[in-house]
């Protein structure tokens, strides 16, 4: 069937529908700058969603755990082989995405007889100074890039649906997401932003995305407090002040609990 061009286009469109349905209810991810670097945060059930790739590179993804794992290993392989053959400074997120991950995702997506990667991710590279931080959003079809607000601001989000992402970004803009707050404050804001995204993601993907709106009496703090009774927050930082070359650190339970205790 794919010999006929329009059938192929149709197959790709179906695939897109299928993947977006799969992703729609995923737990959102928030990437937010703070005083010493960048914070990644999500709320997970069991599987880990935030990972270290190299000394200054980390990512978080939503999607199928096996697909995330495959991309994670591919990124780690690429980065370490490059760092070994050349130098640590030659491992850059730009090249990792442009020449490694994106082409691979695109190939997998367009080969309609094999399974695509069900994944959506945000990757971050910590620069020497905040001006040199780099944030990249990468989609299941290999496309990468950020919207206009996202390009301007030192934060970003990933959620199952576009309206959810849009509302989360608006929430961050409203709450001065660009401010260099301390880590505990950043964890609080990121978690509240997550709650905004989750409120919409829980409803899945309606026929018309415009129908997705926050209920008028929605309170991010209250919603978050409810969630935290059953689920746990996962967060990690790329910390410029960390000693040594590797800047990635997972926050421990206690740190997160302390930050979220006086919500």
């Amino acid at each position, binding site marked *: 069937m794919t010999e006929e061009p329009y059938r192929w286009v149709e197959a790709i469109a179906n695939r897109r529908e299928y993947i977006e349905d799969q992703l729609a209810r995923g737990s959102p991810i928030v990437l937010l700058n703070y005083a010493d670097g960048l914070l990644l945060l999500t709320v997970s059930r069991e599987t*880990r969603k935030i990972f270290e790739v190299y000394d200054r590179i980390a990512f978080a993804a939503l999607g199928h755990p096996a697909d995330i794992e495959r991309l994670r290993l591919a990124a780690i392989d690429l980065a*370490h082989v490059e760092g070994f053959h050349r130098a640590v400074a030659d491992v850059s997120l730009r090249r990792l995405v442009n020449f490694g991950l994106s082409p*691979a995702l695109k*190939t997998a997506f367009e080969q309609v007889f094999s399974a695509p990667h069900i994944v959506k991710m945000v990757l971050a590279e910590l620069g020497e100074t905040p001006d040199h931080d780099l944030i990249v959003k990468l989609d299941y079809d290999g496309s990468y890039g950020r919207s206009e607000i996202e390009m301007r601001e030192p934060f970003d989000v990933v959620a199952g649906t576009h309206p959810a992402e849009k509302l989360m970004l608006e929430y961050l803009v409203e709450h001065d997401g660009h401010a260099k707050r301390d880590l505990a404050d950043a964890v609080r804001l990121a978690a509240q932003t997550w709650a905004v995204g989750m409120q919409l993601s829980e409803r899945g993907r309606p026929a018309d995305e415009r129908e997705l709106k926050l209920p008028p009496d929605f309170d991010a703090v209250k919603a978050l407090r409810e969630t935290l009774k059953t689920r746990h927050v996962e967060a990690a930082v790329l910390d410029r002040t960390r000693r040594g070359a590797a800047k990635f650190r997972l926050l421990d339970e206690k740190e997160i609990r302390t930050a979220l205790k006086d919500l």
Partner: protein
Amino acid sequence: MDPVPAGGDFLAVLKSRGYELAPRLAAAAAAHAPLTHGTTVLAIKYKDGVLVAGDRRATAGHLVMYERAEKLINIDARSVLAIAGVPAVAYEMARVLEHSFQYYQRSQLQEMSTPGKVRSLSKLLKENLPMTLQGVGMVVPIFATYDEGGKVFLYDALGAQFESADFAASGSGALAVRSVLHYLNTWGGKPLGKYSEAETVVVALRALDTAAASDTATGGYNSKANVFPNVRAITEDGIHDIEEAELAKLYKSEI
């Protein structure tokens, strides 16, 4: 794109991309090449961890090639490789090792155990067997790390590993160092394991000086060029260098 199912083995990833640690040279071709080696490195277990030290001289036959060679290489936050042997191969091994530990930790989401690390170096030395047998690339390193106390491992050129109870030394000046340390450890009043960091630094400097006195391939303290040995401590808190200013003071008062 699909990653090699390497289970965290970085060397396997490198090999799958055509990397070879030890090229199979023709033995005859290399027979007369002047190679740099000759060194003294040592590791002493003391009260708070391990102290490693190394001289700075690199030689080729009777020639002094370089007086500021670094023979202590940090592999991770709490491990140091002290190298004796042919630098080209030793530095390459250190590089593979450093990336291997990081690669394992990041891909497997857990740190490699100390026995795993010790074994990794052993595998690299075995990998280097062709170079060793041809006499062009022998490496005899010491691996020092902290894991519930200081730990020191000495290797032979074929990759056999031996855990040292109190201290280890490698390189052309090793015999002199071992004699000094054995004497001190046995009849010195208290065993080396009870020494403070400051006391251990003095012992290490004196031992290196003893090696330099009889071994041409070991460089002592060079007061004209102001070149000091490298001295580094590994404790529970990580790795720290003993600063040159501190060494300069000790050379004046203690050596």
